[in-house]
């Protein structure tokens, strides 16, 4: 539970950490002092027959101690939280940096839900770990030690009782921790199975209703709840026993201390002040240990989260042979050459491109055609510098892409993906992804060019409407038009277009076609094509098959050679 890698994170926040430890220690000392003065006062009034005046200074000190203790409690919480907040931010930045270095190729192949979970919930779980569990862990060590140090010289028997039972608590605690974890897990499993069933029934209610089977589910839900209850309680009954033992250790030893010092008092082997002081200390001795139990879950959750976090942080970063330092001023015209480019995924395990060479002249439109897995999107990813070729080179206006500064190149590529991602942000800011500094007028101009202005104006807050996950929902066609607006705003000489596989709404399609046509003017365009009409219009069609170019040329030429392309076209015409 004390995760070494998590403790490493504290290094940068040493001051706060030591402050926390110091405050915890101070709090323990104050608790002992409070007990001492309480005992002094009661002893004074009860046995020494002192009046108000006799104990007033002690009362004043006692009150001061009480206030100081409260101040310490407040300071501990504030310090612990601020430390936790810093660490959380550090770790999030580390994860993000790691993920961004790994890049889209890695991330797209992961379960995004899991990554999001680590980034959001996983890191959040560290808050209770650093803010609650760790401080409590230190208190649980220091306070009992302080109490023992005080008790030993006062009364040997009490010290022995405490000393003997003290190890029992951590032992039982770990034992209970384990069983409690087991219990928690089991209970959680039961509860989540119950709620999974409930969810299942709710989601299938329409089906149940159609089949006339919905009423009987009331009985099923009732029966399942009872069955699960009986089963789980059977398990819990045993598990709670260990908690019973822990509780017994703490209360019975308090009782033992009380009785033993009571008897000693009787035989005058100890005085009342000391005896009462000891009685007050006994619960203080066990309290932090027992409180640790309530933060146990935070500890477990924190170290579980750490596993997943450090799994991401320790991923090997892909070798990147980009040495790109050369700046590439804004080009009017772009020509691109692929020269015997090879690329394989999974460290060479999965070859995707096996020696691809082709050239795109300025202003030319090239269509990439081929089945899934033929290497179309690998070419796009290489052009977006998500990765570098394993072998071979890509030249931009004669300069090796690997030598060009990344930002310089990317600013000259307008990318319209198949299904654009909309960020949880305003429509205007989503379009500004194309050029961050653009004014609203420029954004509107771009949206008009993309045929998006009209539908944007019909949104509740027009250009300020929040879209994306959790925002206003947009249709696929509308999202696409925003992506085209991005490209217009960016006004880059090279356009990379990943065509939609299925446009199903003729009206939407017509608007998008027209906008794209306008966008493609006077730019070098590479289209990952899915539609025949697009392909017909291209200056050059590059047909890919299993990572190799099988043929290339304009439509008419390719039809004459009667290769793969003509087969593809004829197959579809045949169906027509």
């Amino acid at each position, binding site marked *: 539970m004390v995760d070494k890698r998590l403790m490493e994170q504290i290094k940068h926040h040493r001051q706060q950490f030591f402050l926390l430890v110091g405050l915890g220690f101070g709090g323990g000392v104050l608790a002992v002092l409070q007990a001492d003065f309480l005992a002094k*006062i009661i002893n004074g009034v009860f046995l020494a027959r002192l009046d*108000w005046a006799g104990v007033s200074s002690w009362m004043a000190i006692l009150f001061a101690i009480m206030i100081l203790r409260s101040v310490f409690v407040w300071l501990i919480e504030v310090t612990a939280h601020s430390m936790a907040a810093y660490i959380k931010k550090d770790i999030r930045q580390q994860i993000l940096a790691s993920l961004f270095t790994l890049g889209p190729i890695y991330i797209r192949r992961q379960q*995004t839900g899991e990554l999001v979970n680590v980034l959001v919930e996983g890191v959040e779980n560290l808050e209770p770990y650093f803010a609650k569990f760790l401080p409590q862990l230190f208190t649980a060590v220091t306070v009992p030690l302080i109490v023992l140090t005080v008790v030993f010289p006062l009364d040997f028997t009490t010290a022995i009782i405490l000393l003997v039972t003290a190890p029992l608590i951590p032992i039982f605690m770990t034992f209970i921790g384990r069983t409690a974890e087991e219990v928690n897990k089991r209970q959680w499993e039961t509860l989540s199975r119950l709620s999974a069933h409930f969810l299942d029934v709710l989601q299938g209610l329409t089906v149940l209703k159609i089949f006339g089977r919905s009423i009987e589910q*009331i009985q099923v*839900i009732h029966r399942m709840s009872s069955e699960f209850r009986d089963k789980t309680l059977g398990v819990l009954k045993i598990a709670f026993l260990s908690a019973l033992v822990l509780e017994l250790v703490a209360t019975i030893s308090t009782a033992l201390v009380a009785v033993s010092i009571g008897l000693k008092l009787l035989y005058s082997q100890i005085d009342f002040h000391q005896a009462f002081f000891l009685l007050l200390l006994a619960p203080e001795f066990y309290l932090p240990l027992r409180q640790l139990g309530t933060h146990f879950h935070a500890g477990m959750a924190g170290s579980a989260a750490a596993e997943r976090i450090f799994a991401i942080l320790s991923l090997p970063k892909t070798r990147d042979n980009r040495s790109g330092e050369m700046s590439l001023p804004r080009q009017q015209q772009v020509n691109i050459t692929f020269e015997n480019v090879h690329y394989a995924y999974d460290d060479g395990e999965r070859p995707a491109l096996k020696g691809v060479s082709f050239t795109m002249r300025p202003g030319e439109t090239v269509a990439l055609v081929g089945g899934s897995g033929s290497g179309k999107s690998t070419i796009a990813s290489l052009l977006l510098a998500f990765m570098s070729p394993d072998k071979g080179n890509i030249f931009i206006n004669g300069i090796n892409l690997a030598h060009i500064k990344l930002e310089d190149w990317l600013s000259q590529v307008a990318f319209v993906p198949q299904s654009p991602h909309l960020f949880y942000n305003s429509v205007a800011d989503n379009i500004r992804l194309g050029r961050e500094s653009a004014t609203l007028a420029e954004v509107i101009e771009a949206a008009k060019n993309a045929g998006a202005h009209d539908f944007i104006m019909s949104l509740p807050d027009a250009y300020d409407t929040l879209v994306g996950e959790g925002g206003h929902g947009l249709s696929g066609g509308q999202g696409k038009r925003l992506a085209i607006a991005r490209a217009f705003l960016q006004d880059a000489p090279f356009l990379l277009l990943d065509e939609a596989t299925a446009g*199903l709404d003729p009206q939407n399609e017509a608007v998008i076609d027209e906008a794209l046509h306008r966008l493609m003017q006077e730019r070098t365009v590479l289209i990952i*094509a899915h539609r025949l009409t697009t392909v017909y219009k291209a200056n050059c069609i590059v047909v890919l098959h299993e990572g190799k170019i099988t043929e290339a040329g304009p439509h008419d030429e390719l039809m004459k050679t009667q290769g793969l392309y003509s087969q593809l076209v004829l197959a579809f015409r045949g169906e027509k």
Partner: protein
Amino acid sequence: MSVVIRLIHIIGSSWLTMVMAGLFGCLTIASNIGLMAASAYLISRAALHPSIMELSVAIVGVRFFGISRAVFRYLERYVSHDATFRLLGTVRVWFYTKLEGLAPARLLEWRSGELFSAIVGDVETLKEFYLRVLAPPFIAILVVIGTCLFLATFNLLFVYVLLGGVVLLGILLPIIVSIVQKSIAEELVAGRTQMKAQLVDSITGIVELAAFGQTRRQAQRIAELEERVAGLQGRVVNMTGMVDAFGLLIVNGTVWLVLWFAIPLVHSGQLEGIYLAVVALTVQSGFEAVLPLPLAVHYWSESMAAARRLFAIVDRTPAVLNKTEGIMASADATIKVEGLSFRYHEQGTEVLRDISFTLTSGHSLAIVGPSGAGKSTLLYLLLRFWDYDQGSIWLGGHELKSYHSQKLRNMFSVVSQQSHMFNASIRDNILLAKPDASDIEFQQVLESAELSEWMKTLPQGCNTMVGQNGYALSGGQRQRIAIARALLRNAPILILDEPTVGLDALTEEAIMGTIEKLMEGRTTILITHRLTGLQNMDDILVLEAGVLVEQGSQRELLAREGLFYQLWHLQHDVV
């Protein structure tokens, strides 16, 4: 307040377990008070050096309370867990019963799984209302009353001081906290939502971020947001820390104040000296019952919000009143729709406008059109999920509304785009359509749905579990199971709601082949936006924005070169 009353109503028969759990909670705390008071008494008494006999009662008391606390704690835990499960069951049954009456119309509005999960979460939150909102005040009141009665035997002053502390800690402090926190809470929630959205976007939008060279900027944005959220959170913690500090000060301060009043009393002989320690420790340990109260306030607002959301759902009126009388069935399955118009809400736009068509018994009809054209709505009206008010639908010569609701649905078999699979065996999922089907019938259905070959490859055959919403099934297998359900149901009218959406071309072809068998001898309505396999349909309706724009066979529609032609062309323009 009515929300609370309704919530208490739901408890039903679980109340006894809850009261038991509360009582054991009281006894646990009472034991601790007993332990501390008896110990204090024992020591004070011993300090006066009496004979050991005089101490024996105190010694027994100390030992008794030392053990009883642990035992009561055990019982409390056991009973309160029992109560948790009971309550969950009760709340679920309550909610499901209510929802069943509203289904399916009201359910279709929340299609997304997330919304379902949120509702399941709300139902679970409700249990906190009973365990963490109702129980703590109950325990606190009983314990405080008991402690006060005990203290009253010494001096009423102590009672007043204790009550003052209790009111401060248990009532005033939580109220102040909730008021002050509310001011920051909204800002904090907004900040957290934004933060989460940015983090999600960093993963799901990675392609765009990388392609537009925005990754560094994004990390920076998140760092800024994080600092803002941490700042807000810091303000909250500053406050909760202060509240905790005040809480401790109130507990300690009350003890101090009791001493303040007790000291002169001892001196003047109004309070016996040996009871001084007893009083002080009783007051101190009595606060154990009051400490959970601030947390109850937190759970209060949380569970009230959940309850309000759930009540808002169950309080809706059903879209269709369940009719338990009327026409039971009709042998003739001819469907005639005349001048049908429909809108979901009174102020809403018309989803269907003046639709008329006839589907003769035994014939097949396809309804096509872009998404949002009103295809599904038409289907919901046929199944009587909603009631129409303009125009009419006739089935076998009778108005749809004159049928017995469930008997009417029994005339339909539905194969939809994502047929829901229950987390049960394949057999149970199929038998849903007819629980009393014979084994021979079942085998025949498996054969016709072309499931038997695949089933043989499974180690557990048709007893294989399909997983939550059938995640262990491929799209094709799922649809075959849905087809098997429809076959087993053997209803005269078959409704196919985009049965091949999301399947690859090969599977689509195979499934359509099986479906053709299912269509034999049945009146069929196929809803689709994939324009394949329509050549065999007797009639095709083309809908656009709720209006019937074209009607005819595929050949006729293609010849007309209208919307159907455009759609058809677009779908066949694919490399």
